[in-house]
């Protein structure tokens, strides 16, 4: 009897679960649906997105596909029958791969006039720049003070034995900021000199980890780790102040930004070839470039806007202002040298 009862109970639970999962599967109520394929970090204010939906009589669906690399791979494999109409989040380290696969329909947004020329990818506008950020070293202000260490000013300083074992970077063979920064060092030290610096860093106890998440959340002294100097983003100090708990007026971290010591990462949007909603996809790209969205995304995604009319949060100006020139490496240069740089770096630093 007990056996039958429990089987009955299990079946009952099963049916209610399946039923609850099955209903509401379809939310297409006649209106158009625009599907955006993006990476995990995509974020935007609900009000803005709702307004776009209302203005265009459409529903926007956002598919998140892991990090930028996973997203590009998945776009390439599904290009015969793409999962979405428009994509956001391809950056200049992965751009060539996406362009080679011919994923995009070109579109020249009228709003591009408000975007500085050097942020635009190429003349044919296959992709549209939406935001940018800098990959560079951050330091834990209190930790350096406590250890009585001066703030390093140039990348060369970090090979000093004072900083032995105090620097953590991401592996360029598995992490997007890692690769971005390796590229910056090629420009900073020149093609012939960058490996010597990395070699000296290795001798000085450089710590290499797989991803930004590990470097920042496990190794960084701010989170209870051992290294007070971490490879992160220029916006990280601002975010540390904006999302401090308990609230505070200053930032616990700051940037190390020598000239050419940061890599500028530009994120692009593109209309996916094969979309049946091209007109709507164009409107969405205009929407992403609009002043309202450009002023929204800094606080959502920790990036700088490309639209020169857009203001950034006050914390960005205070703690994350970038006044020095970043490293200059073109997407084409990255594409043709990426594999060699990673292989040489791996041989120098890891093997």
């Amino acid at each position, binding site marked *: 009897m*007990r*056996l039958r009862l429990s089987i009955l109970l*299990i079946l009952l639970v*099963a049916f209610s*679960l399946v039923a609850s*999962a099955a209903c509401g*599967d379809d939310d297409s109520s006649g209106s158009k649906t625009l599907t955006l394929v993006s990476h*995990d*970090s995509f*974020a*935007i*204010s*609900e009000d803005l*997105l709702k307004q776009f939906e209302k203005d265009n009589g459409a529903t926007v*669906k*956002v*598919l*998140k596909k*892991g990090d930028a*690399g*996973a997203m*590009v*791979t*998945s776009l*390439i*494999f*599904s290009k015969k*029958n793409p*999962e979405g109409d428009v994509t956001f989040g391809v950056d200049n380290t992965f751009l060539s791969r996406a362009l*080679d*696969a011919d994923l995009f329909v070109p579109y020249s947004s009228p709003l591009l006039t408000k975007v500085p020329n050097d942020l635009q990818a190429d003349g044919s506008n296959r992709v549209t720049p939406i935001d940018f950020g800098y990959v560079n070293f951050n330091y834990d202000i209190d930790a350096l003070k406590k250890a009585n260490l001066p703030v390093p000013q140039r990348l060369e300083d970090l090979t000093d034995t004072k900083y032995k074992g105090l620097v953590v970077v991401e592996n360029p*063979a*598995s992490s997007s900021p890692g690769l971005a920064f390796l590229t910056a060092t090629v420009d900073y030290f020149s093609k012939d000199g960058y490996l010597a610096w990395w070699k000296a860093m290795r001798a000085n106890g450089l710590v*290499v*980890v*797989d991803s930004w*998440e*590990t470097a*920042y*959340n*496990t190794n960084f002294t701010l*989170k*209870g*780790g*051992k290294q007070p100097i971490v490879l*992160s*983003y220029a*916006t990280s100090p601002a*975010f*540390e102040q*904006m*999302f*401090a*708990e*308990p609230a505070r007026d200053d930032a616990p971290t700051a940037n190390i930004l020598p000239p050419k010591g940061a890599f500028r990462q530009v994120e692009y949007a593109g209309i996916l070839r094969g979309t049946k909603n091209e007109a709507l996809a164009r409107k969405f790209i205009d929407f992403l470039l609009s002043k309202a969205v450009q002023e929204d995304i800094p*606080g*959502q995604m*920790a990036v700088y806007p490309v639209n020169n009319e857009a203001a950034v949060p006050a914390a960005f100006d205070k703690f994350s202002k970038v006044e020095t020139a970043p490293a200059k490496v073109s997407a084409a240069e990255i594409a043709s040298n990426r594999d060699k740089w*990673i292989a040489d770096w791996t041989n120098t630093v*890891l093997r």
Partner: protein
Amino acid sequence: MPIGGSAPRQARRMDLAPWALLALPLAFALLFLVYPLQSILRESLVGESASLADLRPLWSDSYYLERLWFTTWQAIVSTGITLALAMPCAYVFAHYDFRGKSLVMAVVTIPFVLPTVVVAVAFSALLGPSGIANSALLQLPGVEAAPIDLSNSIWLILAAHVFYNVALASRIIAASWTTIDPRIGEAAAILGAGRFERFVRVTLPQLRAAILAAGSLVFLFCFTSFGVILILGGPHYSTIETEIYRELIFIFRPPLAAALAMIQLAVTFGFLAVYSSLSRSSGGAATAQRTRVPRSSREAALAATVIVLLLVFTAAPLLALAERSVHSSGGYTLEFYRSLGENVRRQALFITPFRAIWNSLTFAGIATLLALPLGTLTAYGAQKLRPRLGSLVEAFLLLPLGVSAVTLGLGFIITFDEAPLNLRETRWLLIVAHTLAAYPFVARAVSAQLRSIDPRLREAARVLGEGATGVFLRVDLPLIWRSVVVGAVFAFATSMGEFGATLLIARPEWPTLPVAIFRYLGQPGELNYGQALAMSTILMAVTGAGFVIIDRLRVRQLGTF
């Protein structure tokens, strides 16, 4: 029932019966494993963006051979240590009842569902430079620098693999240990066998199937290890699985990734086939036994020591993590939990913790319910086949254990994108992925136990007039029940923690707890970090509660036959 008359009919039916049982699992595996895998492998090897020159490093560089070697030996060593530690735990779980036992068993199983990033944070919260252990040791006089140095190393990889798997192995072995008839051991004792001899010659042979089943699951978990290697091992270590991910996502050499995925699959298949045939030979005499409270103080001391050591090893990092989730730089606070439900940034696609919990539970619930029949049918069907064929079929059906998650996820996207199987836009694809990852655990747990059932028990039941259903309900089910429950626990856990294939096929409408955790961990700011830890603690609590409930699903009446 006229026994003589039904015999020839039965003989003919016996040939088809196993295939009838296997039809469902085979159809499921062919449709959702083989079909998407062959599409993605073909696309990678001969598709538009494929260049076969990418395959060259495979033979021109000894690097990949070294990776295969490392992948294998670290998995073997991890499995050995896990089994060695699991044996005493299994003994205690199988023999003694004590207050809070199901809670202890739930807690030690929790690591199984945690994303590696979270485990890394937990280890660091406990053993890192400013972790609980070092802070406590620094209070001692004479201790200047943090004494425990937890840096990336092979030891950390091994420790993490044991941390993840010790409960799995203990539970599978314990489920089998409870059904060993003590009278055999008693008889051996009367015949003069010592304690050690009885263990080696009576107990071990009867546990053999369960130890092999547990060992094979742990081995494959470690063989396909991804997060542990990348995050805890550091940049000097990599397995085939991490290389596949790197080649597919980062370097983008799809042919090389596909070749590596096939190598991983082939090794898995060979390994499973050998294991399956090894574990077949155990003849059993299982009967359902009851556990009891420790009788002597020596027994109590033994049980307590084992349990405490197990808890220190598995629960301490979890507690350290939970402690951090209520601790900000300003002192103790519940702010991280409070703010979880609050959309501070007014974000679109905001995930409330309740939604994430509900989604995770729904997916895990459905996946477990689907995995139970699939796994049980796999175990039953394969056992009824001729031994060699049965091993091959079972190895094939257990292949989801060795498949590269990212490869399969991509396969899903490019395969189920059109009618009639346009699953890409439904949540069913996610459920299918979870079920695929979950049912081998049920199959393994059940098949180990099935092999130890004395066939004479079934014959006796038949003689007493029971039909096939009656035999199953009155003989098999009571004896395999604990193993079914163990299988269900790990099917549930696998689904709660699934992140690999989910990464590429997740639907925005249905974020799960691991997805929510990753979203918070991805941004700087103490609030985001704290919220990730709060969400992880919720994942631990919800999963632990799920384990306790599943464990209670035992039918008392089945306890005796």
